[in-house]
């Protein structure tokens, strides 16, 4: 995983900021070298197999499939990273992913998928493609790769492993106070 959290992307952060303001949707910018940068979340992602814009769109697609406004982009990026990894290794996988995103862009019109400003507009494009096997693969994979990320659980208040803490016997298994 090449997600570099906390790196200083000084030179591009301004660019990222500008791009975000311009698009009004994504906070992710693409560097001249083809990496994705999210300045406000302070991470960068090297894109090795896919077109950088494709990867960026996939991250947005992931958020549109499972939109959680309190979940930062990086979780969606981590969850979708495998598509770039596969594309770097396997030309057929690359072609399939590029074709899927190209189809989304085509259906979205002039500005492409990422150019649609409202989630509802993008979701309409996704709904129309929801029987596409590639959509099914993405959604089916994402439901595990997104929600099984242990770092994500605290955002939802799920506490995970409890044996090492002695279970909840003395930690609130019956602490409900509003009934």
């Amino acid at each position, binding site marked *: 995983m090449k997600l570099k959290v906390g790196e200083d992307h000084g030179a591009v952060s301004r660019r990222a900021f500008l791009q975000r303001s311009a698009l009004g949707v994504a906070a992710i910018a693409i560097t001249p070298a083809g990496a994705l940068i999210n300045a406000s979340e302070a991470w960068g992602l090297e894109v090795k197999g896919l077109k950088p814009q494709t990867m960026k769109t996939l991250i947005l697609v992931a958020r549109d499939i499972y939109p959680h406004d309190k979940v930062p982009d990086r979780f969606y990026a981590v969850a979708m990273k495998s598509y770039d990894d596969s594309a770097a290794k396997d030309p057929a996988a690359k072609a399939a992913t590029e074709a899927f995103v190209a189809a989304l862009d085509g259906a979205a019109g002039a500005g492409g998928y990422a150019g649609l400003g409202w989630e509802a507009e993008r979701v309409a494009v996704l709904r129309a493609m929801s029987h596409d096997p590639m959509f099914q693969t993405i959604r089916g994979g994402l439901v595990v790769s997104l929600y099984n990320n242990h770092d994500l659980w605290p955002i*939802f208040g799920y506490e995970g492993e409890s044996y090492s803490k002695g279970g909840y016997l003395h930690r609130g*298994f019956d602490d409900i106070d509003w009934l």
Partner: protein
Amino acid sequence: MSAKFDQNDDSVVVIVGSGAGGGTLGNELAQKGVKAVILEAGPRTEYTDFVNDEWESFGQLAWKDMRTTSGDWRVHKDFPNLPAWIVKSVGGSTTHWAGASLRLQEHELKTATTYGRVPGANLLDWPITLADLEPYYARAEDKMGVTRTNNLPGLPGNNNFKVLKAGADKLGYKECHTGRMAINSIERDDRNSCHQTGFCFQGCKWGAKWSTLYTEIPKGEKTGNLEVRPDSHVAHIEHDASGKVTGVVYFDKAGKIQRQKARIVAVAGNSIESPRLLLNSASSKFPDGLANSSGQVGRNYMRHLTGSVYAVFDKPVHMYRGTTMAGIIRDEARFDPKRGFVGGYEFETLSLGLPFMAAFLDPGAWGREFTAALDSYVNMAGLWIVGEDMPQETNRITLSDAKDQWGLPVANVNFDDHPNDLAMRAHAYKQGFALYDAVGATRTYPTPPYPSTHNLGTNRMSENPRDGVVNKNGQTHDIKNLFVSDGSQFTTGGAENPTLTIVSLAIRQAEFIADQMKGNVI
């Protein structure tokens, strides 16, 4: 010390599967001095190695070998190769199970008589009555340390239970408590009491929940009469010219073919694998599979009605803390056809962690309506519906064209809901919504059935050999020294979680087998 038997020793009882049925039978026989070998397809993973992590634990314990599905049930669409969520590991599904331990009701053993004719349903009375079962239920409850029996205290109620109880009170339900659970409410049987960890489905790391893995099996091994061979997948059962079974052929860990001779073979691979094994054992003498003169092997597959209701509140619940199945409402388990269906159902609390909630709340769903539910995860309460589903001849296990890693035809599970099942589920959802609405739910969700955890009926018991596969002792009608020892014996399913009955039948069967061996009848 665990026994080690020669593969040519034809005096042993070979048991296929080490779960609720097989593990119990093995120990019970061993205690009576009968030599037994349990062949278990899965590995031996001790409870100290269990993990508090839903997907990782699934990878560690669940049955993931190929299976296929068909029929109108939603599982076929959402999980085409995962008809059941059960275990392949020493201990079988008693590693995953929640521990709810209920007796069948008297009328549920006589459904043909009580319910009358239900079109499309292959109802049949069990060849045994509640009175026959009662002494064995008592022994099983004692063995398993079931709460609220034998003066064992109930477990304390967790948050999820408290919400359920508040709703039950508002609706006027009378029988609501923290259940009869095979979970230690006090230290007992050299095992811990429950620490409310909340990972009952992932194997209890405290050993507080009964599982054959760390109760029956080591106790049996200690007698020197029981050997458990993990990583041993039984491919087929062999017989001689007279039709008596003589042993089994199995694949060992390295994939090498092995043979274990036997005086008796008892099949306890759970209700999908047991009929598959009988069908895969077809021979020129038994072209339709072993013990299948009735044509009933694999038929009448039942999975309990099921479904869940999750509800979101404006305040926190933290339902995942504490026992997964933390309480029960029994009022709807009665027989009362005025509700528009025969049979009854139980409400039991249930909780899933965030990863499984995402996968099972509404499989395949996406978008904001779905994610809004997960955003409120901490404020969620949940219950599971367990009801009697109708046995149907066409709901069945057959051999699929697909093959497993050993090259053996896999099981296909075909299931269609019966109209009675649909009517009962609709009623249960309505009551579940009302229950949570009564305590102030802002949203309720009708979650569809998960891949089946209760798999029943595919080698059913019958008085008449024409109607089923085994007699009241679990002995096949066709072959005297071939037994079925798991939930596939169930003639009908009842509304209650099945394991206490499976264990009771195994205790009873062990007595029968030991007697028959002593008398040299088999």
